[in-house]
Structures are given as C-alpha cells and as structure tokens.
C-alpha cells in the first residue's frame, strides 16, 4: 500500500523478487537439535524431530516491508534464519534476487540481520561494531569511518563511537545493531523481533523510526514479530505463521478484514467466533464466522435489527473500562459470548460500568460476518 515511490517505479527489479522461498522445510531432530546454541528459542523445543518450517513458499518483492507474524514456535524466526543462511533447509530452495543461495553460507549472502538480542560484539567499541562489515570488505579507513558515522547519525547515535556496548541502554544497543547492519547497504535487511526487549513507549517510537528508515533507504525489510499491532502498522504485506506453515498472506487490511482461518481471526486482533448451532440460530447459516468487536452495537433489549443487520439477545456479563474505549463481554442466549468494544465518545466510566448485568440486544451488519476456515 505505502510502498515508496522510488521502488514502485523500478518495474524491472520488481519482476525478480528479493526473496523467494520454494517449498522450504526445516526439521530439527536428535543430535542436530542438541548441538544448537541458546540463541534460537524456536528451534530449541526438541523431542526427537520437530518440523519448525513445514513447506513454506513465498515471494517478497524488492523494497517491500514484509512481516512474518506468529506465536513463538510458529516457525517465523526459523524462516528468517533460513533466509540469512544460519540454517540450511531440510528440503526446498532459497532464492535471493533470482539467485539460488540454498547452499551458500551467511557470509556469502547479500543480506544483513538485526538480532533479537542485538548480538553486539561486547569487546569492541560502538564504532568498531558498526564498522565490522566494512573492515571485512576492506573498505579504506577514511571511507569506513565516514560511513559508520553516517549510519550512527541515521539512528541518532552520533558521537557514541568510543563507547562500549555495555555502556548503552537497551534502546541504544538496538540502534547500534541496526546501524551495524545498514552500514553495509544490504539489499535485504532481516529483523528478528528487534523491538521485543524494549518497553512499550520506546517500542512505539522505534516502530515509526524503522518505518521511516526503510522508506529512506528503500531496501527490503523482513520483519519477524509476535506483536500483531506492530505487524499491522508497519508492513506492506505480512504472512501469518502457525505451526510452521503460512496461514494467510496479504496486506494488513486484507488480513484484518478478511481473516482466512480461525487461527488468523483469533491471532490478529480480537475476534468473536460463532459456529455450529449458534451460527444457525443467529445467522441462519452453517459454518464458522467471525465478527470484530468494534463492528457490534449494543442496543436496548427490545430494539429490532435493521434489514441488513443481524441481532442477538443476551446480557452484559462483564465491563472493562479502558479509557478511550470500553470492552463489554456479552453472554448470548444462543450460547457464545461476544466481546464488544465501544468508544467512550459520550459515555463516562460510571455509565459504562453501570451496564453490567443489563439485558441487551446486539446488532451488526450482515457484511461484517466473515466466514473462516477451521484452521
């Protein structure tokens, strides 16, 4: 949706995806799993053989901000590590810019990674950390210092060159890790839950900053997160992972407004599920349906639903006052409990809380009933 103009014009480049995964499977088992470091939380859950990534195929366009969203253990981090080259797939192929890199080690791939634990070199100064990739590429000293300085300026850490990583705060370390990856001007930047260790305020700040940096440098960002809000706000497209598979792939709006499966509906945003007997009673249809809490209206018990609406009677079981919104938990006579959120445009907290125990009629538009697959 919000792809930068520069990359949008590059039609020729857009033909060849930045990253292409072809039926990639990654299995961890026995000896192999035990030998692995503690750095990979998702591979560590080991019994005998665990399928971390189960037949994943996807294409990520040049200049795209692409997120991989899912709970821990869903295979998103392993997929990222397969792209970086830290893991090699059990089967399937990995392509970068039209080149098959499946068997290439990480140091021969034109991607850079921002690690979840930042992975800064503790024995080097911030300047040496950022300049590491340039030293290895034998970039002359003067140019190296200039580029490292530029990269630090981009993450607003100018003048920190001489500090040691241990002298920085979590947010500053995160930015050093970002500068260290960006200074090499990779064509693809991989980010493994880079904001996971930061507090909420800082995280929201960094989200905006990352998005701005991505638009400034115009390279492909592949972003792993378990935070659905983060994925929705930052991405051009995202893939929702569950048990090693992609459940749904699409733009944030598509994922939120038309969740393909029960899992996606539940994981991305809060969602109410209506299925079986209740679906027949309330909606007059078979299957499983989801309706978002903000689409539902609370009316008086005798209110009639409009011609394009459905209605269901029930009573308010619980009220949670959230400041700008209030969340109501409503028990329906037909069985299920639905969550309803309403903005406190005119209601005060006293009025909202007084609704507890009241009999109500819930109404929502028929078009907001979304059928989902049992995933």
């Amino acid at each position, binding site marked *: 949706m919000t792809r930068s103009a520069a990359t949008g014009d590059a039609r020729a480049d857009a033909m060849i995806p930045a990253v292409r995964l072809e039926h990639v499977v990654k299995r961890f088992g026995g000896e192999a799993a035990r030998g*692995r470091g503690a750095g990979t939380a998702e591979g560590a859950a080991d019994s005998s053989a665990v399928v971390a990534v189960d037949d994943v195929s996807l294409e990520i366009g040049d200049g795209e901000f692409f997120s991989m969203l899912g709970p821990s253990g869903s295979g998103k981090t392993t997929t990222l590590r397969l792209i970086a080259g830290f893991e090699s797939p059990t089967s399937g192929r990995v392509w970068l810019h039209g080149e098959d890199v499946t068997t290439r080690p990480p140091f021969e791939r034109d991607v850079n*990674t921002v690690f979840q634990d930042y992975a800064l070199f503790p024995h080097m100064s911030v300047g040496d950390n950022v300049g590491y990739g340039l030293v290895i590429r034998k970039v002359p000293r003067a140019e190296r210092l200039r580029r490292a300085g530029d990269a630090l300026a981009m993450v607003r850490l100018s003048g920190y060159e001489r500090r040691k990583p241990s002298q920085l705060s979590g947010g500053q370390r995160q930015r050093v890790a970002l500068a260290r990856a960006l200074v090499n001007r990779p064509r693809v930047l991989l980010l493994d839950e880079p904001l996971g260790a930061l507090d909420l305020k800082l995280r929201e700040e960094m989200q905006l900053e990352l998005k701005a940096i991505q638009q400034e440098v115009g390279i492909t960002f592949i972003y792993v997160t378990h935070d659905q809000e983060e994925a929705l706000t930052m991405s051009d497209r995202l893939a929702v992972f569950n048990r090693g598979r992609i459940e749904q792939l699409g733009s944030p709006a598509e994922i939120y407004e038309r969740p393909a499966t029960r899992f996606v509906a539940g994981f991305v945003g809060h969602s109410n599920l209506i299925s079986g007997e209740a679906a027949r009673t309330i909606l007059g249809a078979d299957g499983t349906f989801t309706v978002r809490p903000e689409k539902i209206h609370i009316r008086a018990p005798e209110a009639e639903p409009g011609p394009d609406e459905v209605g269901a009677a029930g009573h308010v079981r619980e009220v949670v006052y959230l400041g700008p919104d209030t969340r109501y938990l409503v028990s329906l006579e037909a069985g299920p409990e639905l969550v309803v959120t309403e903005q406190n445009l005119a209601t005060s907290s006293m009025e909202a809380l007084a609704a507890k125990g009241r009999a109500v009629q819930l109404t929502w538009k028929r078009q907001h009933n979304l059928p989902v697959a049992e995933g």
Partner: protein
Amino acid sequence: MVESRPVKWLLRIASSAVLAFLYLPLIVVAIYAFNSSRLQAWPPADLTLHWFEEALNNPAVTRAVVNSLLAGSFATGVALVLGTLAAIAVHRYSFFGRQTISFLLVLPIALPGVVTGVALQRTFITVGIDFGLLTVVIGHATFCVVVVYNNVIARLRRLPRSPEEASADLGGDMWTTFRRVTGPRLGTALMSGGLLSFALSFDEIIVTLFTSGPGTQTIPMFIFAAIQRPNELPVVNVLAFVLILVSIIPVWLATRISGAETAGARL
C-alpha cells in the same frame, strides 16, 4: 550478619588453623633455604644466601630448570592449539559419536598417572621414538589438553552464539570470525587454561619418570633424586623456595584475570 563474640573468636581460630596447616610447611622450607648449616636443625643457627649461589652454579639444577620450562611451554602450546580446536569442534558441530569423543577427551585426566606413563613408555618403545624432551612433552600434553579443553568448552557453553552469527552475517568467514569475535572472547579462558596446564606440567613427576630420557631431568625429578642425598638437601630447599615464589605468580594472575572478568559488565 552479626555474630556473637564467642562465635567470632571461634571462626578466627578455625581460619588461622587452616591457614597454618596450609602454609606452615611452606614457611619451614623457605626458612631452611637460608639456613647456614648443611644439617636441618631447628632453629637455624645462622642465615645465609650461600645455597642460592650453589644452586645457581650447579649445572644439574640449571638443566632441570631449563628442561621444566621447555616441557611446560611446549606441552602448554600443544594443549592450547589442540584443546581449543577440540572444544570448538565438539561445541559447534553435531556429528556421530560427539558425546563419546567429549568423554574420551576428558578421560586421560582421570586415568592414574602410572597407567598413562606405562602406556606411553610402551608405545614409544614400540613405535621407536627416542626418550627425550619430545616424549616428555607428549606425555604432559595428554593431561594439558584436557585442562585447556575443559576451560574453553565451559566458556563456549556460557557465551551466546549470536555474535558469531552476526560476524558471519556481516561477511566474516570462519577464520575471520574466530580471529575477531570468538578468539577475543575466549582470551581469559585460554589464559587460565594455559596457566593451569603449565603449572600441572611443571610439577608433574609420574608420567615424566616414564617418558624422560637420560638428559631430560626436570625439576621434580631432580628434587626427588636429590632428597635422598643429605648433601644436596640445602639446594632442594632453595629450589622449593623459588618454586613457591614462581607458582604464586600464575595463581595471582589467574585470580586477577577472573576477578576483572566478573567485575566487567557482561553482555
């Protein structure tokens, strides 16, 4: 915690007793090194530096010191290379029989020295290697490798893997990554493993007895032989005194290194 008065005194007496138990013999040897009489009578009648001169001028003593230094240095060098490589291999890669190899690597330090000594001696004779400094170094390396291996693998297990991955990600091949990232972070483990291995080699006698040749007497062997000749007792005391001083240095260094490490912020 606040202790009552008797408890405080009891603790002081106990710790003094332990210190005395540990250090009294060392002090006795140190004093005898300056004893003017060739006979070991207590208390020493007069003090002298004469025995130091005699030890210095004794070619058997100097040769033993040189041999010990050479054996210790070479065995430690071999151990640092082999022990580190083995630790990295076992830590990093998963291969068939990894657990077994890890076990077999540590086993030699548990084997009685006599067994190692006999086994090595038989092997050297069978293969046809002349006994000398080389055979002593090989003998010492069998347990020095274990010491370095243990130190390095313990460190590797504690270190997060991600900086090495970061190095590879930024374009560093295996050698670059080891030289710039893994190596520097192993530094103190290599140092303490090396010091310990040198110290072990320096006072080793059992394996040395089985593996040394005619010209390769080490300090422990010299002392062991000399102690049976009353004439040379003063020189033995001097050697013991010097050894005490010399062995304090690596221990002091090792504690300083590990102290600095604990004090430094860990990432």
